[in-house]
């Protein structure tokens, strides 16, 4: 059975988490909602409010009877002034009222049957009576606000009671809709997070597959600065290191193979050279004839063979040297001094030095480095001709010392810039093509690197990059 991809597991986990949490919250909310409504709308509350309304009604009737009684009292003699009227109501415990005495003609209520008590303005009880002088009428307005509030409260409670079910449903629906929104949001975020996590993982997976297919040039775009970005960067660095290591291994194998060939070639050619030379010399010496022309011919042939044998021997020596390159003997050395020592060997050449002051001391095999410089200068002289200009420059960049040899020759074609450092490759008509291979080997053995490019003013520029040891202390020195 195929495993569920990580992306979908992350998304499912996030949605499940949101859904589970929401469901638990929904159940809790439903419970608390029911509890909350029950606190406000319940039998006890309803019963209490109904009782309160009954009491309010009784209170209303009592007030009405009181007003009726006071009305009867005040409509009879003796005559009372306003203070006495107020005192009469106060004695009955009716303080929250307004009294007004007005001419009886202004009253449009029939008072012939005595005082009239009625409810006015929905929240007031009104007592109207004719005072004993029959000229004036007294109007007393008693506020019923407290009682009306009780009535309103009961009605509102009844309304809520009627709407309770709808209200509960509405709360639940509102919560469910909000919860659905939360789950939807969680889903969207889950999908996004899932894709954000798994997309680079898939890219890494693809990268490892490409590497397994030996595609070491494959790189993953980093695109982010978090831990996943660092992981991608590490992967790319690992791929780069693999490429570099493979290149070095291949070069080492190539060099070893070439050296073996050179060793065998030197051995196989060198051995018959001496017998050939001796045999030819004997042929010349042993000739006892009198033909001067033939003797001259033999002598010439012998010289040619001897000369070619010497050339071959020289060639063989070159092969042998290449095959027997010694291991490095490193010691603190001044690169500028190495340059000076070599340039001294070429007094007639037009060599311009641009050497950095305070150039750091390097760990070098001075003898091998001398060989490097000689090979490079020879190479430049060959390319530039006798009147050619050569510039040797030293610089420092971070933890690298750079030695550049720049000539005024035709430069190195782009297609030859890598293979030119391989043995037996040469763009010149003469030579075995070992010089730059030797240079390349020595620089690589120093942990450095050599490259060639077009010089700014034309010609070739060979750059040697050599590592600067950590303990190197810059030494003040002016070189020229």
């Amino acid at each position, binding site marked *: 059975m195929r495993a569920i991809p990580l992306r979908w597991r992350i998304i499912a986990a996030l949605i499940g988490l949101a859904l589970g949490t929401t469901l638990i919250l929904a159940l809790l909310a439903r419970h608390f909602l029911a509890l909350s409504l029950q606190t406000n709308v319940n039998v006890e509350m309803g019963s209490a409010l109904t009782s309160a*309304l009954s009491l309010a*009604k009784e209170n*209303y009737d009592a007030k009405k009877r009181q007003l009726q009684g006071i009305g009867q009292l005040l409509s009879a003699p003796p005559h009372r002034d306003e203070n006495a009227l107020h005192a009469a109501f106060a004695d009955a415990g009716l303080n929250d009222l307004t009294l007004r005495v007005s001419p009886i003609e202004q009253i449009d209520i029939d008072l012939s049957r005595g005082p009239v008590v009625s*409810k006015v303005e929905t929240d007031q009880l009104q007592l109207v009576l004719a005072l004993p002088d029959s000229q004036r009428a007294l109007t007393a307005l008693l506020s*019923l606000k407290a*009682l009306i509030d009780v*009535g*309103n409260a*009961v*009605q*509102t409670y*009844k*309304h*809520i009671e*009627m*709407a309770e*079910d*709808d*209200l509960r*449903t*509405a*709360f*639940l*629906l*509102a919560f469910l*809709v*909000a919860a659905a929104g939360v789950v939807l949001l969680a889903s969207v975020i889950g999908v996004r997070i899932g894709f954000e996590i798994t997309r680079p993982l898939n890219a890494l997976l693809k990268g490892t597959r490409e590497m397994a297919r030996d595609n070491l040039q494959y790189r993953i775009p980093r695109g982010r600065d978090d831990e996943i970005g660092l992981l991608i960067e590490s992967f790319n660095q690992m791929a780069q290191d693999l490429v570099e290591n493979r290149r070095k291994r291949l070069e080492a194998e190539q060099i070893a193979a070439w050296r073996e060939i050179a060793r065998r070639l030197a051995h196989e050619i060198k051995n018959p050279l001496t017998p050939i030379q001796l045999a030819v010399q004997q042929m010349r010496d042993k000739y006892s004839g009198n033909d001067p022309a033939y003797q001259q011919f033999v002598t010439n042939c012998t010289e040619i063979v001897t000369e070619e044998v010497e050339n071959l021997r020289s060639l063989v020596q070159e092969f042998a040297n290449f095959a027997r390159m010694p291991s490095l003997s490193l010691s603190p050395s001044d690169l500028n001094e190495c340059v000076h020592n070599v340039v001294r060997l070429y007094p007639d050449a037009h060599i311009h030095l641009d050497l950095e002051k305070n150039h750091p001391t390097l760990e070098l095999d001075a003898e091998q480095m001398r060989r490097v410089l000689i090979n490079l200068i020879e190479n430049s002289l060959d390319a530039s001709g006798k009147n050619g200009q050569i510039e040797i420059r030293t610089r420092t960049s971070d933890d690298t010392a750079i030695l550049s040899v720049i000539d005024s020759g035709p430069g190195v074609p782009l297609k030859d810039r890598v293979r030119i450092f391989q043995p037996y490759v040469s763009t010149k008509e003469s030579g075995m093509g070992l010089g730059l291979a030797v240079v390349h080997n020595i620089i690589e053995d120093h942990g450095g690197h050599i490259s060639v490019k077009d010089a700014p003013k034309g010609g070739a520029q060979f750059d040697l990059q050599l590592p600067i040891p950590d303990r190197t202390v810059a030494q003040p020195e002016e070189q020229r």
Partner: protein
Amino acid sequence: MTRFFTIKTLAFYLLVSVHPLLAQHIPQDSLYIYVQSDTLRLDATIDSLFSKRAIDAIETGMTTSIAVQFRLRTGRGDNLGLRSLFRRLEHDIWEGQYRLIRQSARPDTQITSHFEDIRRACSELQGISLAQLPLPDEPITLQVRIDVNPISSEQRERTRQWLKIIEKGSYLEFFFTLDRSTFPEWIDLFRFRPSALPHLLDGN
């Protein structure tokens, strides 16, 4: 699948559960449609006009609006007449009086201390004019819809202030409203041909 339907059913129930407060009806045997003085008239009695909850609400003093509407429709869906009876019932709990206010071109008020009088006045409909003759002599359906709403706008405002969570424009108002201003659906009451109706003489 069963669970899916259960959830759907529950959701549907939740959505439609804002049901009307009352379920009144007019029994066929109380229905009498006739022609008098070129006017199509109706006598009818509404059963269960006031539900127990509505009576409870009225008894606490809630002002109640009562709306009864009749409509005549042909088989093609043409409206031939619409008659609306609107009343407002106020209960003065302090004085123990009911005031039934007929809201029409000639409004009048009936005051009584007996709820039974109110019930009768609202339920027993006599000589309600439905339409003027002539009417097309084809099958016509009499439809009715009745709404008794004990929640006045003042009461709604008071309740809204009490339940502070239900503010105007609040999120909760998407799911709940205190306004019950929507009428119930029309109900087919009776099907007749005008030519088949009895004619009453004036004064009967």
